[in-house]
């Protein structure tokens, strides 16, 4: 079995293959050469380059790889070529077994416009399409979707009539870049709708329905939290949903695992067909947990022409979260870098599907999902608790993640009450990522003490920062904060905090010694990065260099690339006058377009990058000299 994919899903498919005694072949780009999925495969084939279009989207290379590695079956995973009918045909034409639905089914569902027509005929409820040109104020808000899209990519909500044309243009550009097809369509946007989907497996004997999932908690139209079964559905609605899904699959004589997605209105009464994903979903583990099935195994069974049955009863409740390398507090910016520590909890009722291990590099080339963490328990509350606790205990250093946000979601009263909707994160502002002041201060103090106490080459036995004449506190500076502290005979003091080194930890006591709370902090240092773990949560700090060589200093007003990427649009020319907020240029990174805007009124004095330039994080993109009043 060759898996035409990467990361966690490749590992996931390999795991089932190993259980079935099926040999495994991985394909990988250059950037992915060191990742676990490559090591774990029996055979690995390199796809030269890094861009998806040069590697994982090159069907010809993948088929050639299968042939040369001796594979006789191809599993596409999700994303990339998984819903590419031409690729499915190539695979079949090469005499290989395609683990997925027929190319015809993929095509029928691949064009969202065509699929909707088909479903209308089959009697599946849906929202009709609008012509972008005919959208009126009354239609707002509307949703712009890429016909070839999936996984939320290329979807944008438009609330102002004036924006429609621009958004359609940009969505089309993104869709063209991402999927090779710029077709977009517009439909009414159901406010506060829920995203509910039904897992189906079509086989020779019919359509097996494996319950439903709720995937309403989303950011930027990408799912963040998924669970099964979808909570709070009446039996009637659930039955109708399942029937509609079965009808949808049956309408195209669907074979294999697929998901029929619906939009459920806020009342939980009416639902509309959104699309059918003709592949394995990212969130398939929650279904596997409650139904006790292995969906990859079922996919293989169907591909081998075997009947599948049973496993329809659901037990308990499962919740999955997608752990992303991203910064929820800053527009969900994807993060890249080396995972200096990646310790995810394991245990009963927990499942972790991840493509990374500690030491791996999270590159900018692909999706920034680090892992899927799934908890299964008898009730929804219990699953949410287990998952939140597990996430909180995770130690992930090197890149910023959405972990804290996930914990806050899982513990929020609204989530626990089942008040779900695709606008969940807009209604509930849980994204504030500022670790509370107290946690930051204590963690910075622990880091300062740890750093100062590391045995130096000389005078290693003299207490850190010792002075016989004290003139000022020691100051340890981080980019995020700074900490003033003093060494004393009885440990280190910072304000009303008191720290001591004990074992490998820093123990910090608050307030009076007779009534103090003592907490253990563990400090991890990796170059300039300092990660502090404690019961107050993970705090990531960056040491501020004490000295900067003036030659390395950056001109004030410089706009720095927030992440590596390429310049796809320049809005200004050198010498241009800009006002605060004006777009200066657009950077495309991690498949998202980021508009770099002027931080203040002024003149563009330097624009060192050209259109199409590849830039590194922190590189100067432009210099906007501030306009002085005087």
């Amino acid at each position, binding site marked *: 079995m060759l898996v035409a994919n990467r990361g966690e899903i490749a590992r996931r498919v390999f795991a089932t293959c190993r259980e079935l005694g099926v040999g495994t072949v991985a394909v990988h780009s250059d950037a992915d050469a060191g990742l676990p999925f490559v090591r774990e495969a029996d055979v690995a084939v390199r796809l030269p380059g890094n861009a998806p279009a040069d590697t994982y989207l090159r069907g010809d290379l993948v088929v050639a790889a299968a042939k040369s590695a001796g594979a006789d079956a191809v599993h596409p995973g999700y994303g990339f070529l998984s819903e590419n009918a031409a690729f499915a045909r190539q695979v079949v034409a090469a005499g290989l077994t395609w683990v997925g639905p027929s190319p015809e089914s993929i095509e029928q569902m691949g064009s969202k416009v065509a699929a909707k027509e088909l479903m209308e005929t089959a009697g599946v409820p849906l929202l009709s399409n609008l012509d972008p040109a005919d959208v009126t104020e009354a239609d707002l808000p509307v949703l712009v979707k890429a016909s070839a899209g999936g996984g939320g990519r290329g979807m944008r909500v438009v609330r102002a009539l004036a924006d429609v044309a621009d958004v359609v243009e940009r969505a089309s550009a993104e869709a063209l870049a991402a999927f090779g097809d710029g077709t977009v369509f517009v439909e009414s946007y159901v406010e506060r709708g829920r995203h509910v989907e039904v897992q189906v497996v079509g086989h020779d004997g019919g359509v097996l329905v494996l319950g439903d999932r709720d995937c309403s908690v989303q950011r930027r139209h990408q799912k963040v939290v998924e669970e099964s079964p979808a909570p709070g559905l009446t039996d009637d609605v659930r039955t109708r949903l399942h029937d509609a899904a079965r009808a949808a699959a049956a309408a195209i004589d669907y074979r294999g695992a697929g998901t029929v997605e619906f939009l459920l209105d806020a009342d939980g009464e009416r639902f509309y067909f959104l699309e059918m994903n003709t592949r394995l979903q990212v969130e398939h583990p929650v279904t596997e947990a409650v139904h006790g099935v292995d969906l990859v195994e079922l996919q293989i069974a169907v591909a081998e022409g075997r009947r599948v049955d049973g496993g329809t009863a659901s037990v308990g409740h499962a919740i999955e979260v997608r752990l992303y390398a991203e910064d929820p507090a800053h527009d969900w910016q994807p993060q890249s870098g080396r995972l200096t520590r990646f310790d995810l909890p394991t245990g009963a009722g927990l499942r972790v599907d991840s493509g990374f291990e500690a030491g791996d590099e999270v590159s900018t080339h692909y999706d920034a999902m680090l892992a899927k963490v799934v908890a299964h328990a008898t009730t929804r509350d219990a699953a949410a608790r287990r998952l939140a606790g597990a996430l909180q205990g995770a130690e992930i250093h090197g890149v910023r993640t959405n972990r804290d946000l996930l914990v806050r979601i899982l513990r929020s009263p609204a989530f626990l009450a089942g008040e779900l909707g695709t606008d969940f994160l807009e209604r509930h502002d849980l994204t504030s990522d500022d670790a509370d002041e107290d946690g930051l201060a204590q963690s910075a103090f622990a880091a300062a003490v740890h750093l100062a106490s590391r045995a130096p080459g*000389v005078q290693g036995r003299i207490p850190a920062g010792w002075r016989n004449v004290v003139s000022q506190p020691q100051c340890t500076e981080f980019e995020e904060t700074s900490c003033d502290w003093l060494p004393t005979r009885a440990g280190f003091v910072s304000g009303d905090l008191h720290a001591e080194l004990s074992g490998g930890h820093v123990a910090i006591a608050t307030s009076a010694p007779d009534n103090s709370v003592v907490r253990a902090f563990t400090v991890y240092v990796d170059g300039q990065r300092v990660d502090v773990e404690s019961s107050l949560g993970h705090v990531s700090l960056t040491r501020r260099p004490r000295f900067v060589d003036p030659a390395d200093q950056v001109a004030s007003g410089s706009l720095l690339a927030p992440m590596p990427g390429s310049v796809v649009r320049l809005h200004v020319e050198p010498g241009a006058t800009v006002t605060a907020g004006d777009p200066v240029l657009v950077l495309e990174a991690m498949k998202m377009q980021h508009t770099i805007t002027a931080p203040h009124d002024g003149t563009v004095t330097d624009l060192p990058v050209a259109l199409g330039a590849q830039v590194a994080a922190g590189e100067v993109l432009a210099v906007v000299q501030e306009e002085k009043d005087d």
Partner: protein
Amino acid sequence: MSVVKLDQPTGRREAMLEKIAALDAEHAKAVAGGGEKYVERHHRRGKLLARERIELLVDEGSAFLELSPLAGWGSDFAVGASVVTGIGVVSGVECLVIANDPTVRGGASNPWTVKKLFRAAQIAKENRLPTINLVESGGADLPTQKEIFIPGGALFRGLTEASADRRPTVALVFGNSTAGGAYVPGMSDYVVMVKEQAKVFLGGPPLVKMATGEDSDDESLGGAEMHARTSGLADYLAVDEHDAIRIGRRIIARLNHRKPSDNAAVSVTHRSLSVTDVGYSEPDADVEGLLDLIPTDLKEPFDPREVVVRVCDGAGPGNEVAFDEFKPLYGASLVTGWARLHGRQIGILANAQGVLFSEEAQKAAQFIQLANQVDVPLLFLHNTTGYMVGADYEQGGIIKHGAMMINAVSNSTVPHLSIMMGASYGAGNYGMCGRAYDPRFLFTWPSAKSAVMGPAQLAGVLSIVARAASEAKGRPYDEEADAGMRADVEQSVEEQSLPFFLSGMVYDDGVIDPRDTRTVLGLCLSVIENAPIRGTDRFGVFRL
């Protein structure tokens, strides 16, 4: 050694804490420099204070041992003598750091400044430390120039001698460094000047005008840019004070400094302790006990073993016995023995009963020779009233025996460290390696006193001599005047034998909290390892 539980008379702790509080207050005066107004003005100019420069210069988390912080105490000049000296770790190298305090009369040097700088230079020389001068001084205090000008010349000579002795010197010039002061950068191996701040010339514009009629300005005569680009006196041009310190740290990083490896009891490689590291244990008794140890009246003796057990390494692997006493049954008024401090072996001589008899003197002479035989540094813990007097003792050869001890301590070449714990009177101060015997470092506890003899004894001696003189002349002795004289003498000798006064005279390297003794000694032991440790077998003729 058994650890005696201290349940001494109350009042000792209170008295000691009071003296420590007074010490803190005096240190605060030194830290305050020229006072709020001048500190504020200095900051307003965008400049850093002397100690702020030092904090930035030394490695993060490293220690700084300030030297002679009370220099000038009791004089007309500010406590600290307008300069900060000390030992800090810069780029992993123990350096002697000197920083003028420009908030005190523009950083001008007074007689105490010169004394303090000489002492700092001596420490750099004996311990082979690189020197970093953080320069910003208005030159000499003119009213006292007669005490500065002629002897002060040796400061510049010392810089070039250091250079010739392969002890690099670095000058970071932050401001004024004019006239004679221009020779500090002038004689240094490396010179960094801060742009728009450094001013280094022999004569300023008015003097030049008077001398030659030439019109000039500060920048053309001695600006940093000029020296960096034209005269070549500056090797590096720093854009600001931070940059100057950054460059200074890079200079030290490139000195290829290394400690002589064969004298390191603790072998340290790079940033991790090597396998040859001997390890060490914390002391066997709580250091806080030192506060209860020193009697308020120094006439009352205390057991110095109680100090050893609180200052030296406790028993542990590789150090099975914390203190191996030498000759414990002989000359019991002086305790001698071997111990470890931060893993480094030291020999200890500590007064136990105040008086030194012939036996103690001979025991000391022998022990000092033993330490020289095996290249082990010596620690002297002072609490002595001097050598015994009286006919029996004179006839028993106390001078001869005291001379043996002084001979041994004078000619010993292993490093000596002295701590003034209590009394240090008379020739006892000499035999125990007082200031004149050049211990590498000498620190004083707030409880100490040092003089030719005790104040009461000194006043009494004067009284007896005066009474004898008047009797010889057949005049009646004025008892009232005698009482007044005795009180006056007693009071002034008492004042002049106290730690702040003696520290003000730069007769020690600083007054320390007794609880810091272990840290201070550990730091000094690390510093002395920058020079080879070699005992001698060449003493003066021992008069037997």
